[in-house]
Every structure is written in C-alpha cells, then in structure tokens.
C-alpha cells in the first residue's frame, strides 16, 4: 500500500501550514527521515521528513498553497506500487494510517513512559491511554496531552468518530459523515456538525443567545486554548505591531433614525425583517469606505494592498468568545439585503455554524456595544485590517444646533475610529470620519 504523507500538526490550535518549497519533486526518490518539504506555520518554518522510503507521488498541495494538517498531502510509493484513486482530492482522510506515521518527526512514547505529574493526572481524569500520546521531549507533558486531545481521533479501520445523534441525523438527511468536520473532542462529529451541512434542519441543540460567562467558579481556571487563545494572540499581536490612533466624534442620529424608522414601517407592511441600527450604519460605513481606499487596505509584506471589495466584519459576541462574520461586498448590497445578510450571519454565529468563508476576507470591522449602554470605547484593530469603528449607544442630550447657540435635545451617538498609523495618518482618518458623520446626518448624501 502506498504510504500517505501526512502533514503533522505542530501547534495545538494550528489548522494549516503554508507549503514553502517541495525539496523533492514528484517522482523523485526519498529516504525515510529525509526532508521532503519546507512548510511555514504562523510561528516557524520547518522541514518535514519522509515517513517512508520510496518515490514521492501525488503531491496535492503546491508552493504557496495552504495545506491542512493531519491530512494527506502526498504519497510515497514503494517499488511497483501505483497511486490510490485521488478522485475525492485534497484533504483525504488520514484515518487508515497508524498515528506514528502521521508525525514522523515525533517519537512515540515507549511502555516505560515518563510522564509529568500534571500530565498523568490529566490522563487519568480524562481516561487517556498514555501510550498513544506523543511527545517531542523525553517526558509527556501537559502540552502533549492538550495536543493529543486537540488532534483528530484516529480510529482503526477508517471508521469516522461520531456521536449516535450525529449518525442518526446524517442518515436521516443523507449526509456523508466522511465529508463532515467534527467539532467534538478529538474531532468527533457532533449532531451540530451534521446540521451545519443540512441548511434546512434546525440545530437540534438549544442555543444560548445571551452572552454567558464561560462559567467557572472563582478560584478555578481553564486552559487558554482554541478560540480564546487565537483571540489573545491575534489581538496582542495587533496591539503590539500596529500603532493605533483613535479618533472620536459625536454624530446626530435624528435623520438616520427617522429614515430607518420609515423604512421599518415599510418593511412591516411587506413582511421584511426590521433593519437594525448596526445594519443601517454598516450600509453607510461601506459606502464611505468605497470612497476612502486607505481605510480599506492592508499591509501585505512590504506593500500596501488596496482592496477592491468592501468586506465588512461585524464583531459578534457568542457564548464562547467573539467572532467576526463578514458581509462580503457590503458596498454592493442594498440596505434590505445587507440587513438580511447580517441577521443570517449573526444567527449562524450564535449557533456556531459559521463557515470559513463567512469569517474570511474582512477588510474593515464595526463593533457596536451600544446595546449594552456603552457610550464610547476604543477597539483593537482586527489584523490584517487597518481600521475598526467602535460604535456606542445613542443617547438623547442637549446640543447646540445652530450658530445662534440654540440648544436642542437630539439623539447623539459617539463613535471611535481606531486606525493603523502605519497606513492611515490622523488627517486621513479624520476625513473618513468627517465624511461618515456627514452621510449619517444627511443620508441623502449617498446619492449625491
């Protein structure tokens, strides 16, 4: 049987590597232990060794492409062997392969195991077979256990790990379980994962729409892993790498509110969903972004890339953290469509059903905490974007409305724009904000 060449998982929350270079070409002889491909993760560049001696064939991912970890990226053929049928293409299951060949660079723990006390306790409490845990050092550590738990479950015989409920749902809805990614422990497929592949079925588990704490008693702790860890790393990196500047304005919401309410009356009659403040703002922000290329740009290596599309991220709180679903080409959408799209994405976010496409490609982010009564706040830029708009609550307060110092009570909203000073100078950001205020206070400017 050809030996699958599997991309090892080097980091706990790692999903992909980028292929830098194939050191061996298709059809070339390789020797077990010899470097075959150079890959890059967010942290390191490393060479991956051949798991077997033979001929390299069937490379599935090429230079500068991302390859998923724990999946087959190529095959190594022994003398006289041919390539397996690759009709189902990339990301072929790794399941028929013993775990040791999945990570050639890593030794498998021997029966006379050395284990740290913490790791041993974790293993005991979670019923983990320590002989199956791999370690890079000479002792199994807490990290190794966490890696083991995060890695997809390898089931002998290629059977997919799935809960009974997931199996029932897949049968009822004709979903092929092997095409479903499992979100459960060790990659086990849960009913929710099957449901994600069947748009018309409701999520079988109830959802909690309220923002709840991760639910721990004072004095206890949880490991900083997964989504939380990614949020921590990304935002720390953003805060450290991009010099933030903050610009705050107050905006009179009278006309915008009046216009929104008029539309909602119409929507009520036509049975459309009511347009939210955030959706209304998103429409105006998207329009404004299409006129301010520097705010819709990213630093890519040593260049500033101006994006063609305005892909607007909407920061959304969910039970286990924060996700930013993206409304792609938001500037091309009418307000009603944009509102529907935003409602759909918010629901997917709360149900944990967002797809990779639905969170990828954002070029600018809006974060609205007005519904919590927050008057104003500053937000950290979501890399590789250049700006984020922090929207506060609309409060009624007296302001001077004309040159005769006439005072009126108006609905006033405070927004703070954070921009990356490497790309956007104060004046550029200020102009963006001034134009945004103008269009919010006079929505008809959109057709100007």
């Amino acid at each position, binding site marked *: 049987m050809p030996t699958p060449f599997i991309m090892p998982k080097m980091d706990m929350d790692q999903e992909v590597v980028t292929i830098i270079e194939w050191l061996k070409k298709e059809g070339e002889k390789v020797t077990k232990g010899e470097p075959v491909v150079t890959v890059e993760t967010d942290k390191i560049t490393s060479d991956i060794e051949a798991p077997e001696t033979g001929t390299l064939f069937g490379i599935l991912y090429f230079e500068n492409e991302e390859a998923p970890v724990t999946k087959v990226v190529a095959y190594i053929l022994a003398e006289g062997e041919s390539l397996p049928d690759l009709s189902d293409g990339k990301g072929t299951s790794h399941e028929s392969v013993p775990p040791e060949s999945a990570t050639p660079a890593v030794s498998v723990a021997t029966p006379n195991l050395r284990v740290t006390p913490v790791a041993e306790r974790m293993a005991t409490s*979670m019923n983990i077979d320590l002989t199956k845990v791999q370690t890079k050092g000479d002792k199994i550590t807490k990290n190794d256990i966490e890696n083991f738990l995060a890695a997809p479950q390898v089931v002998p015989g290629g059977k997919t790990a799935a*809960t*009974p*409920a*997931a*199996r*029932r749902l897949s049968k009822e809805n004709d979903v092929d379980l092997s095409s479903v990614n499992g*979100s*459960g*422990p060790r990659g086990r497929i*849960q*009913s*929710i994962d099957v449901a994600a592949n069947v748009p018309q079925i409701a999520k*079988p*588990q*109830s959802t*909690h*729409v*309220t923002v*709840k*704490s991760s*639910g*721990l*008693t004072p004095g206890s702790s949880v490991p900083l892993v997964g989504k939380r860890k990614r949020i921590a790393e990304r935002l720390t990196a953003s805060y450290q790498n991009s010099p933030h500047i903050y610009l705050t304005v107050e905006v009179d919401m009278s006309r915008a509110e009046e216009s929104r309410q008029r539309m909602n009356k119409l929507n009520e009659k036509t049975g459309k969903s009511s347009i939210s403040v955030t959706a209304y703002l998103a429409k105006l922000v998207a329009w404004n972004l299409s006129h301010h290329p520097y705010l819709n740009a990213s630093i890519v290596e040593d260049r500033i890339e101006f994006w063609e599309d305005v892909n607007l991220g909407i920061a959304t709180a969910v*039970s286990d953290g924060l996700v930013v679903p993206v409304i792609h080409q938001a500037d091309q959408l009418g307000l009603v469509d944009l509102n529907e799209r935003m409602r759909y994405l918010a629901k997917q976010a709360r149900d944990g059903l967002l797809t990779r496409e639905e969170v990828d490609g954002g070029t600018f982010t809006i974060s609205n905490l007005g519904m919590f009564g927050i008057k104003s706040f500053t937000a950290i830029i979501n890399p590789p974007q250049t700006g984020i708009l922090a929207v506060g609550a609309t409060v009624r307060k007296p302001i001077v409305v004309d040159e005769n110092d006439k005072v009126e009570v108006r609905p006033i909203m405070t927004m703070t724009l954070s921009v990356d000073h490497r790309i956007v100078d104060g004046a550029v950001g200020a102009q963006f904000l001034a134009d945004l205020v103008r269009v919010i206070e006079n929505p008809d400017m959109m057709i100007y």
Partner: protein
Amino acid sequence: MPEITYREAIRDAMVTEMRRDDTVFLMGEDIGTYGGAFGVSAGMLDEFGPERILETPISELAIVGAATGAAMVGMKPIAELMFMDFILLALEPLMNQAAKARYMFGGKATVPMVIRMAGGSGTGAAAQHSQSLENILMTIPGIKVVAPSNPHDAKGLLISAIRDPNPVCFIEHKLLYKVKGEVPEDEYTIPLGSAEVKREGTDLTVVTSGIMVSKTMRVAEKLAAEGISIEVIDPRTLRPLDTATINASVKKTGKLLVVHEATKIGGWAGEVFAAVSESDAFDYLDAPMRRLAGKDCPIPYNRLLEAAAVPQEADIETEIRAIISNAY
C-alpha cells in the same frame, strides 16, 4: 398546605395507613418509647400500643424474617432498620424468602411488607453506618426499591409501598429527615415506578435520586442564570425504574448525567445507561453518558473525607459544565 419534615411525612404515612387498615403494624429496634433511631415513630406507641408498635431484639435477621412470615399470613408489616447497612444481616429472609415466595407459591402467597431503612452518609457515622446499598437491593428480582427525595414524595410513596402486595425496600436518606416541604394532610399515593421530571430543560438530562436531587436542583438553578438549561429527573422508584421518562428526556437533550451517592462500580447509573442504550434514545445521544457517583471506598469517618467521598454540589456543577462544553 402545611410544611412538615421528611420524618414527619413518613410518620404521617404510617399513621394514616395504620388507622385505615388494622393489618398494618410497625416493628423494629427502639421504635416505641424511644421513637426510633431517627425519631420517625415518635408518639406512635401512644396511639397504637405495643402490639402494633412492636419492639424487637437487636437482630435484623429476626426482624425481616418475622416481617416476611407475618406478611405471608395476611399482615402488612412495616419493618424499620436503624441503618441500611444492617440489611446485609437480613439478606437471606429478604432475598431468598420474601422476594421469591410469591413466585414459588404460584401467586398463592404474597409478601406485602415494607422495610424502611436509613441510608446515606453525611452524619459522621463512618463506614458501617453510612452506606448507600441500593445498588445491591436493585439486583434482587421480586422486590421493589423506593428512595424518596422530599417530604411530599415520602408520604405518597410510603402509602403506595404499604399497599403494594410485594416486598418494598424503602430507603430514607438520613440528611433528609429534617428537611421540610409542603405535604397535603389528606391521604394520597404516588405510584411506584413513576419518575418525576423535577425541572424541564433542553441541554442535559440529569437523573438523580435521594439527597442528590436537591443538590442537583440547586446547581441547575444556578446554571439557568447563565442560560444552561438542565432537565432533572428523580426516578423516585429505583426498581422498577421508569425508563420511559428517562429515555424521552434523553431524546430531547442528547446528553445524560446520572448522579448517585452509591458507589460507582456496579452502580445503578450503569443500569440507566443500559436502558438508554437499549432504546431508541441511543440514536439521540450527542455525547458520552457520564456518571457522578460515590467513590469506590468505605465512607470515611473524617468529616472532610466523608464529604469528598460522595458527590457535592461543586462536583455536580463541574461535571455538568464539562459535559455541556463537550469536554468528553
């Protein structure tokens, strides 16, 4: 509705039945003048006299043996064992005689007796006076096992148990004796073999009994504030077990936790799991079924160790959170 204690509710049930039916009588150690080891029968001697509040020697073998014989000749004895731990001395009359008589005599003899026993830990009574032996009793064909978790159920279930034509082991948790609850003054029965959904929920089913019910309910209340919705089921009767109610709940929530004070290995949580696995509810499971049970050790005398040996509220909460967050 008057609030009375669990102990008073049990007494109320016995008094109600003894007034209604002359064949019902109570027997046990120190149940007369002393009022029983936990004061359950206090005052009953005055009303019913020494023939119906029958003091016995210190021999559980004698008590259960005599009760079995009395039941077979037409009486309806209620036997009180000071501690559940002592049922082991009486397993021969219980398991070999009482449980089998109706079967062996082709239905011509019945054994309508109730054995009341105080079970459970939490009073510092150490290894030989703190056990939860329901796991053992549940394996005996021919007897019923009842474990009320509150005063209301204690009264209704005990009246049903007294009227049942089969031997019933009636397990009273020591820590519940002083617990108060609303109990109707009138006579009422709760059918044996029917569970109660104590609290409806959608995220996880917890099946639990005895003292663990109130602990679980408090945890469920706390978690509800965070949007975690727990369904709590009290089987009330452990044998026969109301698997229909449990299975229906698992089909709704997809997740199951069983909490019991009795020890884990061979514990009745396993019986609940088997019932789910053997039913169509299996196909609705979305996580491994879990159990939280007494540690597999004798109940320690030291109060801290004693508490650590059986599930406490914090343990229940931690386990629920783990299941809900897909940790298993």
